[in-house]
C-alpha cells in the first residue's frame, strides 16, 4: 500500500511582482480527510488553491501528491492525477445543459459519450440535480450552479477535491445540505479542502482546520483547538 500522505505541501511560497500572497506554507492532507481552510479576506486561500490545482506556479517550495512531486504542473495534469476543484465565482459551461456539464468532467476518465452520460447521471443524483439535468446551466440558480460544479469535479474521479466557497450566499437549509454533501464526499473516500467563510457549515464536519493570515499559516488543528487559538482570534478580531 501507498504509505505517502495524499498531499504534502512543504515551504510553499507565491509572490506576484513583490506582493507576497503565500509564504512558507507547509501541511499534510491524508486520504479521505475533510480539511477546512479559513482566514480573513486576502489571506491567500485562493492563491493556495490555484497553486495546488496547477493554475499558479509556486515561487518556492514543493507540492507532492501521493509521494510524487507535482510542483508547477499544469491544471490538466493535476486533474488527471486526481485533483479536482470548483471555482469561487462559478464557471459552469453556460451553453450546455447541466448533464452535459458533468459529462465533460466524466470524459477525463472515459471518452465514450454514452458512458460519460451514465456517469453524469450518477453524479447529478449525488448532488441532487437529477430533475435539472436537461436545464441549460445558465438557467440554474447560483446554489444549483455551485452543486453542478461539485458534480462536474466529482465526475473526474478525484482523490482530492478543492471546494472554493461552495456555501457562500446559501440560506441556512442550503448550508446544512452543503455540509451533508461534503460529508458524503468524505464517505466515498475522497479528501476535501474547503475554503469557507461560513463557519457553521464547516466547523461541524471538518476533521482539521488550517488558518492563513497575511499569506502565512498561523494555525493547524481540530476545529475545537482552532476556536480557542489566541493567534486565530487575534487575526479575526484584531488585538
Amino acid at each position, binding site marked *: 500500500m501507498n504509505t505517502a500522505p495524499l498531499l504534502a505541501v512543504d515551504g510553499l511560497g507565491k509572490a506576484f511582482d513583490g506582493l507576497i500572497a503565500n509564504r512558507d506554507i507547509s501541511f499534510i492532507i491524508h486520504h479521505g480527510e475533510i480539511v477546512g481552510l479559513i482566514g480573513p479576506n486576502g489571506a491567500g486561500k485562493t492563491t493556495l488553491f490555484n497553486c495546488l*490545482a496547477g*493554475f499558479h506556479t509556486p515561487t518556492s517550495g514543493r507540492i507532492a501528491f501521493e509521494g510524487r512531486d507535482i510542483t508547477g504542473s*499544469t*491544471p*490538466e495534469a493535476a*486533474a*488527471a492525477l486526481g485533483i*479536482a*476543484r470548483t*471555482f469561487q465565482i462559478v*464557471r*459552469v*459551461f*453556460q*451553453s*450546455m445543459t447541466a448533464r*452535459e456539464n458533468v*459529462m*465533460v*468532467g466524466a*470524459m*477525463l476518465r472515459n*471518452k*465514450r*459519450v454514452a458512458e*460519460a452520460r451514465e456517469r453524469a447521471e450518477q453524479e447529478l443524483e449525488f448532488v441532487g440535480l437529477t*430533475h*435539472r439535468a*436537461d*436545464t*441549460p446551466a445558465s*438557467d440554474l440558480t447560483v446554489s444549483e450552479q455551485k452543486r453542478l*460544479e461539485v458534480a*462536474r*469535479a466529482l465526475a*473526474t474521479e478525484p482523490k482530492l477535491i478543492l471546494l472554493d466557497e461552495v456555501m457562500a450566499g446559501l440560506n441556512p437549509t442550503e448550508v446544512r445540505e452543503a455540509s451533508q454533501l461534503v460529508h458524503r464526499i468524505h464517505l466515498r473516500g475522497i479528501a476535501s479542502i474547503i475554503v469557507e467563510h461560513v463557519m457553521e457549515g464547516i466547523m461541524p464536519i471538518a476533521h482539521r482546520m488550517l488558518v492563513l493570515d497575511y499569506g502565512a499559516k498561523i494555525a493547524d488543528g481540530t476545529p475545537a483547538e482552532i476556536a480557542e487559538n489566541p493567534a486565530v482570534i487575534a487575526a479575526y478580531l484584531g488585538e
Partner: protein
Amino acid sequence: MTTGTMTQSRKAIGAVALLALAAVLPLAVTEPSQQNFLILILMGAQMGVAWNIVGGYAGQVSLGHAVFYGIGAYTSTMLLVSLGISPWIGAVAGGLVAALFALAMGWPCFRLKGHYFAMATIAVAEIMQILVTNSDLLEGAVGLTLPMDRSGWGALIFLAKLPYYYLILGLLVLTVAVAWAIERSHIGYYFRAIKDEPEAARALGVSLTRYKLIALSVSAFLTALGGSFYAQKEMFIDPGSVFATTVSIKIALIAILGGVGTLLGPVLGAVILITIEEYSRTLFGSTGSGTDMIIYAAMIILVAVFSPSGVLGLLSDLRRHIGRRLPGGTKTAKADKLEVRP
C-alpha cells in the same frame, strides 16, 4: 431520453430529405448559369461548415482562413501542372499541407486569446498572400492556369457544370459528416467547454492547446479541399482570388450569418450571402467591384446588432415566440419550451 431520440431521428429525416432535394435539383435547374449559382452556394456552404469547426464549436474566430483555401488550391494545381498528378491525390496532399500549416501557425497564435487571436490569423494570411505574390516558383501575381486539354473524372476538369455540382455536393456532405461526427464525440463537448469557460475546462483535464490545434487543423484540411475544388472549377488561380482577405471574411461571415456552432447554420448562411452577392453582381456589373465588401460589412453589422446567434438563432427564437403566443402552438415549440423550463 425519448424526446432526445425523437429530435435526433427528425433531424436525420430532415437531412436526408435535404440531400435528396439537392441531388435532384439540377433536373429542374438546367441553365448553366443557374447551375453555376447553385455550385457557388454549395462552395460557400462547404467553407462555412469547415470554418465552423474551429470558429463556431471551439470559439476560436479565424479571419485568415484564406490561407488554407489558398494552400489547397495551389498545392493541387502545382502538382497537376508541374507533375501531372491527379487532383484527387493533389487535393488530399493540399489538405495535409494545410493541416500541417495550421499546426505550425496555431502553436504561437493560440497563445493569444479572443480578438488578438483573430488579428494574428489576419496577419498570417496577409503575409502568405504577399509571399505567394512574390514567388517565382508559383508564378507570382500572374497565377496558374490548369491544362485545358485534359478533362474527365481523372483530371477533374469538365466542360459541363453538372459534374462540378455533384462533386461539390459530395464534398459538402463529407464536410458536414466530419462536423457531425465531431459534434457527437467527446471532442465536440470539449470544444464547447473551451469556448464557454477555458479555465474550467482545464480544471477538468482538457488540454486547451491540444484541442484548439485539433479544431484548427481539421478545419484547415477541409477548407483546403474547398480551395482545390475552386481551382478545378475556375481552371485559373492567382493570389488575389484564393489568398485574399475578402475570402477569409466571406468564409467566416457565412458561418456567423447562418449561426455559429450549429451543424447546418453555415448552409443557410451560404444560401443568403451568395444569393445577395450574385444579385448585386448582376445589378451593378463590373462597375460595382467593391460592393461585395459593402455587403459583407452591412451583414456583419446586422448580425452583431440584431442576432448574434445568426439567422438560425433568430428562427428558433421566433418559433419559441410563436409557440408561446398561441396556446395550441406547434409540437416543436412546446418541446423547446419544455426543455427550457421542465
